């Protein structure tokens, strides 16, 4: 079946531009996570949705970052006024449930954002 998909796969933005990154989770998955992976680093947590509710946004690095999942399926991560330090791969992951047991997270291919 179809896995998690993300679009676009690559995005080049000029500093100061706004960008929107899309994630299509596996159908029926309750939980959706966004991670940011800088070059040479492991993924770092940004935010978490359970259905349409954003339950944890503690990893968002600044108020320029905003995420939504209005109908509990597709999610969009928006970055306003992009800066060079925002250059990274943005990963989306989804899982069937929430809480314990620890449901496996299925990752998308990522969106590579380059800010010039």
């Amino acid at each position, binding site marked *: 079946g179809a896995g998690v998909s993300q679009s676009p796969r690559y995005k080049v933005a000029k500093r100061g531009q706004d960008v929107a990154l899309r994630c299509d989770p596996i159908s029926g998955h309750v*939980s959706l996570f966004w991670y940011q992976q800088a070059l040479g680093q*492991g*993924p770092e947590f940004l935010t978490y949705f359970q259905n349409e509710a954003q339950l*944890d946004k503690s990893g968002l690095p600044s108020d320029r970052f905003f995420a939504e999942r209005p109908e509990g399926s597709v999610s969009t991560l928006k970055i306003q006024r992009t800066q060079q330090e925002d250059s990274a791969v943005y*990963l989306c992951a989804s899982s069937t449930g*929430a809480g314990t047991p*620890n449901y496996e997270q299925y990752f*998308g291919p990522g969106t590579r954002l380059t800010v010039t």
Partner: protein
Amino acid sequence: AQRVTQPEKLLSVFKGAPVELKCNYSYSGSPELFWYVQYSRQRLQLLLRHISRESIKGFTADLNKGETSFHLKKPFAQEEDSAMYYCALSRDTGGGNKLTFGTGTQLKVEL
């Protein structure tokens, strides 16, 4: 705060040699630990988790709470094991089981 440390950025072994990828963690609670793998041009995927106590593709990992370690081992490396390996820790903050990753170890299996 929780932290995951993978001391080796690159590990190079010969085919058939044993492999050990190191992972140490710091966490005040009861951790759930995972190994994720990313093969070339593929997405990140779960390899194994400590609660399952299973062997996947010949890999095993034992949680040692005394040494706060979760090293990944395989007795005989295969060429197809070449990949990027990430150790990760999960905790439920009441808002989902977010993962804290290490910086990863690139495993290269040479013929």
